[in-house]
């Protein structure tokens, strides 16, 4: 059982929970995640460790409420308990010892790219971050990321920072600077777009994938992704991979497997699901 120490609403649908997990807080490294299971009957879901405080023994989880399980988690108040917080899982981010790094976070991905920027900064790598969201109120981790270097903000409607997407400034940034590595975390289509922009110049581009997972220890194989034509398990082989090798179409498609169930969980408290509800071809 892990106690929720504090809760902060970062945007209308993004919540930050600081959870007591001393061992994980002590040893977690950038890029690693935990599996969270609210009660014995809840779903087990993977969440990246956005930050930690070894002194207070807490880890920071940033959760976007999209399905039933994330809605339940984001409703937790300080003092509440979570049945299971397991980790830290996955390989830590590969961090260079020096040079220039570009960290890109789309939407809630800003929280996931945070520990990477933090890790780079601690090693003395020069960090430039780009974060983006639809509107001003959905921009998160702005102050935190600003500590690690230059921060560029984009919103779809121009209500904060510049108007556009996180990829908008990339052609110019790539043309005018030398980058040793680019990290991209966010919706699949965004990570794919970043990878396509860095591909011509062959800039090492690392993406953090978020497929459906159960155990997080390699046992179920639900999180399989195709990387360089090979099937990999995101939980034990990732969650970070070479963005130029990832089959994003398959990743995006596999993320839709349970969409109909999530809709029905919102709708009705009983009865079996109708598999015939239409599945969007192009998920957001």
């Amino acid at each position: 059982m892990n106690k929720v120490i504090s809760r902060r609403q970062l945007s209308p649908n993004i919540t930050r929970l600081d959870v007591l997990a001393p061992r994980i807080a002590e040893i977690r490294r950038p890029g690693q995640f935990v599996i969270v299971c609210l009660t014995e009957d809840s779903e087990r879901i993977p969440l990246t460790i956005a930050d930690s405080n070894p002194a207070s023994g807490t880890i920071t989880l940033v959760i976007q409420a999209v399905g039933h399980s994330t809605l339940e988690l984001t409703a937790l108040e300080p003092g509440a308990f979570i049945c299971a917080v397991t980790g830290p899982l996955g390989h830590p981010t590969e961090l260079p010892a020096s040079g220039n790094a570009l960290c890109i976070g789309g939407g809630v991905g800003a929280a996931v790219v945070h520990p990477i920027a933090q890790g780079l900064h601690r090693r003395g790598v020069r960090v430039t971050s780009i974060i983006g969201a639809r509107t001003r109120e959905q921009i998160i981790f702005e102050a935190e990321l600003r500590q690690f270097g230059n921060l560029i903000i984009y919103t779809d409607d121009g209500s904060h920072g510049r108007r556009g997407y996180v990829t908008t400034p990339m052609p110019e940034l790539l043309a005018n600077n030398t980058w040793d590595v680019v990290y991209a975390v966010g919706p699949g289509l965004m990570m794919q777009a970043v990878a396509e922009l860095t591909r011509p110049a062959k800039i090492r581009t690392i993406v953090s994938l978020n497929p459906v997972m159960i155990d997080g220890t390699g046992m179920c194989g639900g999180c399989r992704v195709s990387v360089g034509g090979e099937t990999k398990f995101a939980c034990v082989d990732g969650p970070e991979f070479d963005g130029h090798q990832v089959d994003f179409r398959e990743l995006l498609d596999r993320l839709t497997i349970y969409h109909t169930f999530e809709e029905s969980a919102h709708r009705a408290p009983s009865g079996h699901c109708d598999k015939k509800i239409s599945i969007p071809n192009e998920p957001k």
Partner: protein
Amino acid sequence: MNTRLTTKQRLQIPRHKMPKQEASIRAANFSEVNLGYTEQLALREASRCLNCRDPRCLRGCPVGVNIPKFLNLLAHGKMAEAAQSLLRDNALPAVTGRVCPQDIQCEANCVLAGKGASVSIGNLERFVADWASSHREQLPAIKISAKGKPVAIVGSGPAGLTAAGELTHLGYSVTLFEALHKPGRVLSYGIPEFRLPKKNVAQEIERLRVTGVTIECNVVIGRTYTLPELQKQFAAVFIANGSGLPMFMNIPGENLKGVYSANEYLTRINLMGAHQFPRSRTPVINGVRVAVIGGGNVAMDAVRIARRMGASDAMIVYRRSRSEMAARAEEVHHAEAEGVKLQLLTAPLEIFGDERRWVTGLKCQRMQIGEPDASGRARPEPIPGSEFILPCDVVVVAIGARANPLLTATCPELKLNRQGNILVDENGMTSLPGIFAGGDIVRGAATVILAMGDGKRAAKAIDRYLQNQPAKATA
């Protein structure tokens, strides 16, 4: 009651069938198929045992249960004594009584097997185990073990639980580490409710807890703590974290939507309760036509679950013939009675999907029996021109698992075989002194009872090892 029977009289008692739910009813529910003997049936069946002077049944038991002893006590109606005897030999009798392949172990060795029908040892083991759970007040209070040297066990499956029971009995202070949020491993996520009720698993684990075993869930050894870290805190370690990564066939279409590994399919339902969605939060795709690939117990469990989830066609696709199926004979019979169809001598070639990448069918080819291969089983050979498409909307791949690298990767000194399984000596000790291993992480995929045998052997070896160790500063 049956004390004065002559051998001739015993021989005249017919073997008692296990009462079970009718196939057409059980195919639509998750309740246990076998209902268990009544006390009357159990006593009568136990009195069939001839008390052979040289009981061969014992030799067939990987955990060394003193079978004639508990049968004899049972036949005399000495329930509590029978239970004590059984529990002393076997930490998980309610499990083994239900899932052991008795037909090729103890019961195959029973002298009566040659005379028609062996004593139903498994059914009787189950009866005594269940009696023990419901009559705890009639059993002597369990002594909490003296706090001996600390021993860590990695993985709370059959091997780990058995070793925990044995080591606690020997006076060690045992801590079990489990990666999932519930203990039991394959007993919890793998074997379905209708074959092994979770209530029985919970009772067995609770009995171990009462004897002083500490179980720490949500700890992944290799991630949360490394093996070298465990070595510093514990006098000995037993690694029984099971097999890991599910194998796929490497045929086109395996990442389509609707394709599951058996591990994922079973875990969603058995551990996470997906058949009760949305009351349980984990969903599973409910196929109308479900093809399960494989011929072992895991494949049987998956296909029978699919049937219970409402599949009109629940099919086994297996490339060899019935006689090579690794599944327990009883499970195959049960499955067929429940309407499961067997597509034998059939090998999958490709999985097809629709424009949205949902599974629509499995391209297969028919096989014929060829020469025996390295495993001694007849090698199946394709029949040219026999390709056909089996329409289905869910495919479950149940062809085994590879060794999980999570723990071994954090301890490179640990010697592994080429498949990544841990190498051990005849006592179950690894290449590192004081580190033992057993179960599927050593054997590859095997059975519950073989894992339990490893757990028992390792516990005894750990005891011998620690007896010979000078008091360790860190212990």
